[in-house]
């Protein structure tokens, strides 16, 4: 056990403002380059885009000053930087598709989703003034999360797009409920583990220098494992299953500090994955495409075509990339969603891709730092869990595209085209900032101004430990 001395928090939000200027410059320059290469550069339009981007950044900055004045300063610029790059790349793919006679407007609709996401961000910060309120909805969140995960399986409501049943249709729109279920399940795990942490961490038999949990405490793990398997089999969504199980294992580890949980979880997942590969042909095909991607038979049968094209794209990008708008990322199917990492790798090169991955590292580091700093166990688990969700999601999709692990369809947070993912990730960031506001609030002010958290004062159930 270790304690960490209180850090000197940068007061004010000036650092954020400066970082936002950089993020804004990235967004505008990226779009300018894309427009130039598409012979579409109109300074008027670019000017309006720059103005709009500056307006959005300013509104969010002011909103944070008012709603969460002590929250982390780096998170928002990081997110807007990622979005700035992504919007340009998606627009660039629109141009490329138009050249080939395919009329798409991913770029413009993604801008709409970003604005909607920013609105959701502000709404979450306004509605949730204290993250501990969420603890009251532990089981509600758990049940809702599972319902959302299972919604696409409902006949008539679920839609199968490209072989994955992870969508529900509302009118002409389709929605990926799993993205939102992810957040609800993190809330559920945080509340559940905060209550049952002691039982899970309790001593059991010792094996190979690890303390194993007691058999009866394995129950929740078994349930989560079964749920993950169910998602994998029913919805053919390997990525979501891995994400779901990974978040759970990560949060159990944070709650109990027991390495044995991680080892048991990994062993269970590997056994389950191998068994699924043998039992289900569509899973086996994924493994085949991963292990023998360069095999001419596998390639020409179309199973590894997308993956290999993505790899070739990244290879042609080299160290510094072909330049935004100058490559051929459109040769990869789904270059704007699943394979946006390959598109960016081609046009920005290894240097640009590393910068993007480092931005994710910074984002996750802020979530973890918030978890260390916040003073209540629920907030710790919630923040760490949300950090894990981003980490795993990025790992699964980037690992899949770079052929480190089998490719599974997951969205890249803030980069990939898709409304559900954009909205859900804005909500994740809002929650992290809400917790970080509490974590970084100076103790003196927190005590001098107890009215900032009146709910916590009135409600004894929000206290850390219930009275006996």
């Amino acid at each position, binding site marked *: 056990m270790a304690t960490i001395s209180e*850090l000197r928090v940068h007061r004010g939000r000036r650092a954020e403002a400066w*970082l936002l200027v950089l993020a804004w410059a990235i967004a505008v320059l990226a779009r300018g380059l894309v427009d130039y290469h598409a012979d579409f550069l109109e300074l008027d339009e670019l000017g309006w885009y720059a103005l709009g981007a500056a307006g959005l950044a300013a509104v969010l900055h002011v909103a944070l000053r008012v709603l969460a004045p002590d929250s982390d300063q780096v998170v928002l610029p990081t997110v807007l930087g990622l979005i700035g790059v992504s919007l340009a790349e998606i627009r660039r793919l629109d141009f490329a598709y138009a050249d080939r006679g395919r009329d798409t407007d991913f770029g413009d609709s993604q801008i709409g989703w970003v604005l909607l996401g920013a609105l959701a961000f502000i709404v979450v910060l306004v509605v949730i003034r204290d993250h501990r309120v969420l603890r009251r909805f532990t089981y509600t969140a758990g049940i809702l999360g599972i319902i959302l995960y299972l919604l696409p399986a409902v006949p008539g409501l679920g839609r199968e797009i490209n072989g994955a049943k992870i969508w529900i249709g509302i009118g002409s729109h389709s929605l990926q409920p799993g993205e939102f279920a992810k957040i609800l399940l993190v809330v559920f795990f945080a509340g559940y583990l905060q209550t049952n942490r002691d039982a899970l961490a309790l001593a059991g038999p010792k094996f190979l220098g690890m303390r194993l949990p007691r058999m009866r405490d394995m129950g929740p793990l078994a349930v989560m494992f079964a749920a993950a398997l169910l998602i994998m089999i029913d919805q053919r969504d390997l990525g979501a299953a891995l994400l779901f199980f990974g978040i759970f294992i990560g949060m159990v580890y944070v709650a109990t500090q027991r390495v044995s949980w991680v080892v048991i979880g990994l062993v269970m997942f590997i056994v389950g994955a191998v068994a699924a590969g043998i039992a289900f042909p569509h899973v086996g095909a994924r493994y085949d495409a991963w292990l023998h991607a360069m095999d001419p038979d596998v390639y020409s049968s179309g199973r590894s075509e997308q993956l290999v094209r993505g790899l070739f794209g990244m290879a042609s990008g080299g160290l510094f990339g072909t330049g935004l708008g100058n490559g051929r990322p459109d040769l990869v199917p789904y270059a704007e969603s699943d394979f946006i990492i390959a598109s960016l790798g081609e046009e920005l090169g290894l240097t640009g891709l590393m910068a993007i991955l480092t931005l994710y590292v910074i984002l996750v580091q802020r979530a973890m730092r918030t978890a260390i700093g916040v003073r209540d166990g629920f907030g710790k688990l919630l923040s760490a869990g949300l950090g894990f969700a981003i980490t795993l999601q990025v790992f699964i999709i980037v690992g899949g595209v770079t052929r480190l692990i089998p490719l599974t369809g997951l969205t890249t947070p803030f980069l990939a085209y898709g409304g559900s993912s954009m909205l859900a990730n804005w909500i994740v960031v809002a929650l992290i900032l809400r917790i970080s506001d509490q974590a970084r609030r100076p103790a003196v002010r927190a005590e001098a101004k107890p009215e900032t958290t009146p709910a916590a004062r009135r409600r004894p159930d929000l206290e850390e430990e219930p009275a006996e």
Partner: protein
Amino acid sequence: MSQLSITLLRLGFLLLLWSLVLTAIAVLRSDLYGTRVVTRGRGRTARTRDDARAQKQAAPSRAGTGIRTGAVSTKERTQGHLAVTSGPLKGATVPLGAAPILVGRAPTCTLVIEDDYCSSRHCRIFPEDDGWRVEDLGSTNGTYLGNQRVDDPVPFREGDVIRIGATSLELRS
């Protein structure tokens, strides 16, 4: 635009991307290197006053766990300290002053112990007649001084060990 300026813009964009990354890290620098981590436990029992002071400034690493700062001031006349020799808070010390010390799970206690076998307000350690006494506050699982269950206030001398659930507290000079 010439090919050269386009190449420059292309590389300039990468530079801009990295400048966002590096500036963000620069903002975090104090956060990455500026904290002081005090490791507790690992069988170390003897604690110096400096560590106690460092822990007073330290935020509790787990909510509800740790020593409530401000309740005991080191400026007061200290009469030794209370050392946690086992349990989740192992290695922590509480300097003893003129004020009584409340031990329990409630966040308002001086020493907050997160243990299923510890009551909200478990026991009280208070000064009396030049010495210390320990009194159980009607806890569910009891406070033990040696092998004796404590009920009414009993003297708590230097070197004595009280046991609350998995936690042991020793009085030291």
